[in-house]
């Protein structure tokens, strides 16, 4: 099992290297180190939400509401700032809004026992609507942004530490924390167990609800961080800041090896997948491919890679030890956990 996961991340690194080689050949400017480093600022927020999302997916849930939560938290920050709340307090308010929203998702999921996809779909609209209402309340109606942030806040988006963008450093630190959390703590193990079989986890005495709730809280918190980062980067808080992260973030988690049925996946895989997706978009852009074609290609990449992985896993299963073992391993998961 472990070996297979490791191998998958190696494949992702290979894809990433392949991207560098191909795009470097097409346009040598792509490999310019400062270009590569600063390019990350355009997609690093996808990673910020994709990493905690990986935890949710591993734990057998799914969250699509983060896409509008990013905008809601940004707007909360913007509104607080608009009314002259000091900067640290406004940031705290945005983070608190994210955590509360995550708590709301988790509470509804456990209270009503409805599938997480449905609940978070509902809250996707709710949060998006709440953000629009809030921004309308301070007169920034519709999709205009709330601006006029303190200089120190907007500078963060372009800040560099030792020549590396601060946002990238923030992401790396966050990823490290999550790697430790998921792969080296008791909590992390229990997330996998809950995802593998909720009932088995419950019968073995794990606090299933609490574990899943924590994963949703983390997603809410990180959505807020992403919202703050984006408003700092763009210099304004808008309702639709996060809508474009929905598909890339889920794609990154799935591409990174998380099984949509729960119980499988890794933070490192998601992190590498974020860079694969991000650099693919940028490389295609620099190679002069129109953005519409690059969206088709990244969709195709997701389908192709997952089909490849399933195909090779199937093949490996046949080669390794007859179909019996494979049927025993894959069937129950597939049957139980469909969302």
């Amino acid at each position, binding site marked *: 099992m472990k070996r297979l996961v490791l191998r998958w991340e190696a494949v992702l690194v290979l894809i990433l290297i392949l991207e560098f080689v191909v795009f470097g050949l097409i346009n040598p400017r792509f490999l310019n180190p400062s270009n590569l480093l600063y390019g990350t600022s355009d997609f690093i927020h996808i990673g910020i939400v994709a990493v905690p999302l990986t935890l949710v997916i591993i734990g057998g849930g799914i969250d699509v509401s983060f896409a509008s939560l990013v905008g809601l938290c940004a707007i909360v920050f913007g509104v607080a700032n608009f009314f002259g709340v000091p900067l640290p307090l406004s940031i705290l308010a945005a983070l608190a809004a994210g955590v509360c929203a995550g708590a709301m998702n988790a509470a509804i999921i456990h209270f009503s026992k409805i599938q997480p*996809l449905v609940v978070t779909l509902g809250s996707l609209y709710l949060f998006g609507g709440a953000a629009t209402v809030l921004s309308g309340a301070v007169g920034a109606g519709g999709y205009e942004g709330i601006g006029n942030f303190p200089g120190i806040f907007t500078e963060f988006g372009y800040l560099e530490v030792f020549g590396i963008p601060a946002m990238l450093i923030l992401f790396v630190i966050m990823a490290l924390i999550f790697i430790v959390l998921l792969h080296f703590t008791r909590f992390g193990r229990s997330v996998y167990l809950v995802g593998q079989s909720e009932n088995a986890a419950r019968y073995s005495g794990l606090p299933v609800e609490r574990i899943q709730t924590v994963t949703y809280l983390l997603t809410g918190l990180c959505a807020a961080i992403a919202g703050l980062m984006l408003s700092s980067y763009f210099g304004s808080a808008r309702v639709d800041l996060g809508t474009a992260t929905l598909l890339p973030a889920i794609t990154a988690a799935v591409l990174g090896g998380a*099984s949509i049925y729960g119980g499988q996946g890794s933070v490192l895989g998601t992190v590498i997948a974020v860079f694969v997706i991000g650099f693919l978009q940028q490389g295609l852009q620099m190679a002069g491919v*129109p953005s519409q074609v690059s969206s*088709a290609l990244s969709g195709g990449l997701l389908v192709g890679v997952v089909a490849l992985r399933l195909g090779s896993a199937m093949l490996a299963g046949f080669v390794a030890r007859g179909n019996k073992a494979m049927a025993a391993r894959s069937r129950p998961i597939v049957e139980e956990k469909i969302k």
Partner: protein
Amino acid sequence: MFELFARNRVASLFAITILTFGIIGAAAPGFLSGNTIAVVMANSLVLMLISFGTMLVIITRNIDVSSGSVLGLSAAVLGLALNAGISLPLAIGLCVLVGAAAGALNGALVAGLGVPSIVATLGTLGLYRGLMLTLTGGRWIEALPQSIKSLASNLGWGGSVLTIIVLLVFAGLWFFLRRTRSGGYFFAVGDNREAARHLGIPARWIEFSAFVGAGACAALAGVVFAAQIGFIPNQAGNGIELKAIAANVLGGVSLLGGVGSAVGVFISVIFLTAIDSALVFLRIPAFWNDFIAGAILLSVLMLDGRIRLALDKRIRAKRYAIGHGGQNAKPASKEKAAESLHVSSEATR
């Protein structure tokens, strides 16, 4: 009374819809008119078709999030064909064919390769949108011929040719799912795929055809979209797939498969569209729309979830009390997977 509404999702949704219309009518006299009903009906056609297609897929216990892009792709094909001078029936045929082909690719990925449906359709969501934009070169298709726009014109009773088409699809779908053997297969596969397979039902083939049907429905929605709007923007159909899933869930289609009805989806789409129209009518600023829609969706779901839990409990208690045999008291919940499959089709009635 409680039992009837609790168990019958369609009846309770119908009652809620009537109640909502009544309340809005009382708050804003003039809302309850034939004109309003015609407007709501016309506004709901696109979402209705997408939701019907999505329902087919969800009943087989898969999910399709690519339908918005299929709508865009097939509408673009329709527009390009029309502007190239191809006759209307031929262009519509081509459009539906493209939609069915897009659905077939989804179906091949899911039923053939075994890719989880949410992953496969998430990928094709990007793929089809990109294909559409490649076809159109990123430009909006404007100046559609009058022949297609006239499809949306009022026939004198508040409906148009499009309304008739959608009602025909609705009736056909209802008949197919409720009155034919192959329609029953969809529920069987969604309820318990392995059991269905062992009974000799071609499970993969059924899943595949559900996706093809969803693609064709999305293409029809593309025709309606083009006729009603009169041009095809790049983002045509963007985000409608999520709305369609929400409409399905509200209409009593279980994401766990095997439960659902065309009538429920029909009413829930009308309900969702009526709320939108009512907001306009009540002069509530448009930025409240999503908030109210989300709040209603969540509270209905929560209420429904609680009712089902309570009902399950009661039924289980009853069954244990009288031993085995409460067949028509079949709850629609997670436990159903463990039950035999013919029982669940009763719960959906």
